[in-house]
């Protein structure tokens, strides 16, 4: 079995879903208020994208073209519902924090986009590598935005509570001087704009 490692790495930087392809921005802007939310959402997207790519690629010769959209939607919606039930039962804090964005993974452009553009045309192994790469790229993009927003907006980095650790790291100077707009929707849009411009500039410099 030949592994095409380019399928894995392209989603991380070259075709990063958040900064380069600009897919799935709704959850990126909505849940990036805390690092823990970003990690929870990334885990949900990884599970759904991995299994949807795997199943759609495995069934690509079984599902006729004329019914591929309803078939993909049933598969993706089922995987999202499974993720939702598991998170509700076993990580209720993350489930509650993600709120409406968790069921909205069904309509996340990354999932259906990768199913249509990649999994339906490639082998199972390549589709799995694509899903892992894209999920890592999405997780990096989302976590970077969440880290900057939470650091500047609240002066904290929220992870998960373990034992005596409450999960919140308070960063001294930032904690006492928060820039509140970073926690709000305009802050998310501003930051996304600056990061997109930075990645475009980096890409252009590399090409030039």
């Amino acid at each position, binding site marked *: 079995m030949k592994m095409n490692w380019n399928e894995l790495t392209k989603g991380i930087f070259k075709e990063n879903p958040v900064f380069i392809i600009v897919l799935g921005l709704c959850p990126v802007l909505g849940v990036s208020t805390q690092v823990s939310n970003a990690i929870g959402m990334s885990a949900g997207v990884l599970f759904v994208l991995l299994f949807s790519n795997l199943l759609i690629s495995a069934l690509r010769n079984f599902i006729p073209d004329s*019914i591929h959209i309803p078939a993909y939607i*049933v598969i993706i919606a089922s995987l999202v*519902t499974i993720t939702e039930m598991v998170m509700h039962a076993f990580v*209720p804090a993350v489930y509650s*924090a993600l*709120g409406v*964005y968790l069921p909205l993974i069904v309509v996340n452009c990354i999932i259906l986009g990768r199913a249509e553009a990649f999994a339906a045309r490639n082998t199972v192994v390549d589709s799995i590598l694509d899903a892992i790469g894209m999920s890592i790229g999405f997780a990096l993009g989302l976590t970077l935005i969440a880290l900057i927003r939470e650091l500047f907006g609240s002066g904290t980095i929220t992870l998960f509570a373990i034992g005596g650790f409450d999960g919140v790291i308070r960063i001294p100077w930032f904690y006492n001087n928060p820039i509140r707009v970073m926690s709000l929707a305009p802050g998310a849009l501003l930051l996304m704009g600056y990061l997109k411009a930075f990645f475009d500039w980096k890409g252009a410099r590399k090409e030039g």
Partner: protein
Amino acid sequence: MTKNIRYALILLSICAVSAFLLALTNSITAPVIEEMDHQSRLRALEAVSGGLEIGEQQSVIGVPYIDYMIPLTKDGTVEGWILGLKSAGYGGEMTLVASYARDGAMQFAQLLGHSETPGLGKKAEESWYMEKFKNTGSSKPVPTSKAMLSDSDAQAISGSSVTFNAIAKAIAAGSDWAKREGGVQ
């Protein structure tokens, strides 16, 4: 015709496998979620009881917004009630528990379940949110509009008026019920 039947069978088989997997996951997660909800309800009742003894739950029929009541007693005397309230928020039904004194004054309240928007109506589950209703319903009316709130409280609920109105109406209905039951009205 044969082609359409084949398509229908393919979709049916995908739906059947999905339904089986969903049922399997539900059978594993449903008891865990149910137990968690039960524990969270017990914690909420304890938090709003104000240290009084929590009695047996009884249904309240035919009173808008009120689902059930639990008497709060001290040395065998009823000092107030916990009411299970329901109201229609922005994202659907909201459930909360609130405790009342015999004169209808709301003591403590906590949101149990809701589907409100994160960052807007979802703020109602934070502890400070219910403070604006504390001790209202007796000599001081329950604030049922933004105009009845202080500037800072009105600012805090900005963008979530539907959620605020839903909670306020349920709390006001609870207060009226407590006053009637307590013989004040």
